[in-house]
């Protein structure tokens, strides 16, 4: 209950009801106000929130810098495509494939974690980066001698999620309303996101969560406290990867098409940026980061239209501008809010404790006199 109050303020029930109502009507508001293409953006926002929450376990909670996180997303997506597309002629239902994809990704998480147990910081980052690229390159080349991934062409006609005979891949008519596919997926993704948020919150406050925090702060001391650092590290990799695999499966079903291109290094870095920007280790911060870094690039597309309308032609390609603004935003963040937009309790205090340094010197003096 403590966690609920931490995030929802003094009147949690009211806040919760309002928040739920907002999330339910959000696609209709967005669809009516900005057009249905924005509901699709909303779907991607939720996928990235899932990814960011998963990576946050590895990076934010356990302090293990993972630059190959997108590989787990890829594994979840490819497993979904293998088991639910014409590629192998298999069409298993989503409720069977999604957990399998998440489990496969979790297994690979352990596989990545095991040989990197002794690595830290930059060294770990390099190895995980390599791992991410290896998975992508495998996907790119495993079309011969046996066609497993269909190479760079990717895999097509992946089955949409179908719940109780209702396919989410087509518009649904209920009570005279027509709900497009993107709306239906929104609710599925929302359910998955809420599930993952609850799990992430419970993990943070659990014994495991405390062990992760200790590991992040000082590995030797953590081991001396009786924490099995090896298992706890592997668990962080596995949990993070599992969420990534789940998001990957949802992504494959939603898009109906996947190719190695969707899983490049840039995506890993993007998800990491979401965490850093939003506030590492803090769930609302991570969600905010994912929302901003998905929505802002989409919004910038309008700059192209704006230029065409005012200047007659496109002077600056919004795609280029996106990267530039992205860089500026991150530099500004590091200067003005180094702990993130919504920092975790610890990081907020750590950074605000800069003036605490003077205080500490004072304390040292006091020590000397006491």
């Amino acid at each position, binding site marked *: 209950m403590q966690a609920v109050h931490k995030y929802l303020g003094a009147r949690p029930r009211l806040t919760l009801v309002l928040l739920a109502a907002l999330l339910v009507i959000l696609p209709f508001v967005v669809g009516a106000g900005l057009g249905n293409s924005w509901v699709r953006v909303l779907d991607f926002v939720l996928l990235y929130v899932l990814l960011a929450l998963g990576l946050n376990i590895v990076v934010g909670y356990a302090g293990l810098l993972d630059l190959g996180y997108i590989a787990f997303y890829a594994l979840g997506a490819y497993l979904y495509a293998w088991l639910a597309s014409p590629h192998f002629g298999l069409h298993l239902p989503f409720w069977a494939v999604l957990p399998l994809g998440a489990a496969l990704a979790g297994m690979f998480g352990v596989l990545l974690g095991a040989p990197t147990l002794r690595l830290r910081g930059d060294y770990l980052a390099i190895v995980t980066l390599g791992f991410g690229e290896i998975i992508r390159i495998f996907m790119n080349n495993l079309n011969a001698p046996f066609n497993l991934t269909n190479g760079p062409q990717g895999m097509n006609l992946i089955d949409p999620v179908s719940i109780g005979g209702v396919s989410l891949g087509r518009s649904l008519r209920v009570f005279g309303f027509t709900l497009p596919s993107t709306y239906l997926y929104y609710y599925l993704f929302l359910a998955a996101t809420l599930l993952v948020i609850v799990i992430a919150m419970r993990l943070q406050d659990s014994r495991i969560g405390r062990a992760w925090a200790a590991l992040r702060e000082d590995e030797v001391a953590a081991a001396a406290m009786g*924490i099995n650092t090896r298992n706890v590290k592997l668990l962080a990799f596995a949990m993070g990867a599992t969420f990534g695999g789940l998001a990957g499966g949802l992504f494959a079903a939603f898009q109906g098409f996947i190719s190695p291109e969707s899983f490049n290094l840039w995506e890993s870095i993007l998800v990491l940026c979401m965490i850093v920007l939003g506030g590492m280790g803090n769930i609302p911060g991570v969600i905010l980061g994912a929302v901003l870094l998905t929505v802002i690039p989409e919004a910038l597309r309008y700059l192209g239209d704006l230029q065409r309308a005012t200047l007659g032609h496109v002077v600056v390609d919004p795609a280029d501008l996106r990267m530039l603004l992205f860089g500026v935003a991150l530099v500004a963040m590091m200067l003005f809010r180094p702990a993130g937009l919504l920092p975790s309790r610890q990081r907020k205090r750590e950074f605000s404790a800069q003036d605490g340094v003077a205080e500490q010197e004072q304390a040292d003096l006091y020590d000397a006199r006491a």
Partner: protein
Amino acid sequence: MSLLSVRGLKVAYGGIQAVRGIDFEVAEGELVCLIGANGAGKSSTLKGVMGLAHPHGEVLFAGERLHKLPTHAIACLGLALVPEGRGIFGRLTVAENLDMGAYTRNDKVGVQADLSRAYELFPRLAERRGQLAGTLSGGEQQMLAIARALMGRPRLLLLDEPSMGLAPLMVMKIYETIAAIAREGVTILLVEQNANLALRVSQRAYVMESGAITLSGAASDLASDSQVRAAYLGD
């Protein structure tokens, strides 16, 4: 029978032999110190006992062989290490640090009692329980590290250079506390460069030099030993 008994302990890093086969004992309820100059192999000895380095030789704790056990398993047997440089969890609060010390315990009532005792022993920590441990002064951090180790109700407390980097008066305070903890019956193995202080609180002592034990005996005898006085006590 001694609580900790070490036979032929060797610790090497790469090709460098830091500890060259030493024997020592710590009996239940004793405060034993291991003194010696910088680089004599004192910290490596503790690391060897705690499974943090790759030791050779025999380490028996309450009759159980520690050899090849991982650090967390050794900690679960009842050895608590206050590492060199304190090893506090800087971005956790004082209270959370103490809580981590009791990680392996699940007797809530006992943990609560030990927590009150820790705050009694270190009133400064009680004042600062909500503060991030990284913002504490050096002396307070050392207190926190010791208090945290005690939260595991260890059968043997290993202290690695508790005086390091602290102001002289703070060092005195830390040593008063160590003596108080020993009086309560906690067995302590203390590693210290500051021989003067260490000999004053200990019952027995071992002197280490270049990875070997060169002298041992009652702390009071060693404190008056002319060789020790010349080498470590500045006479």
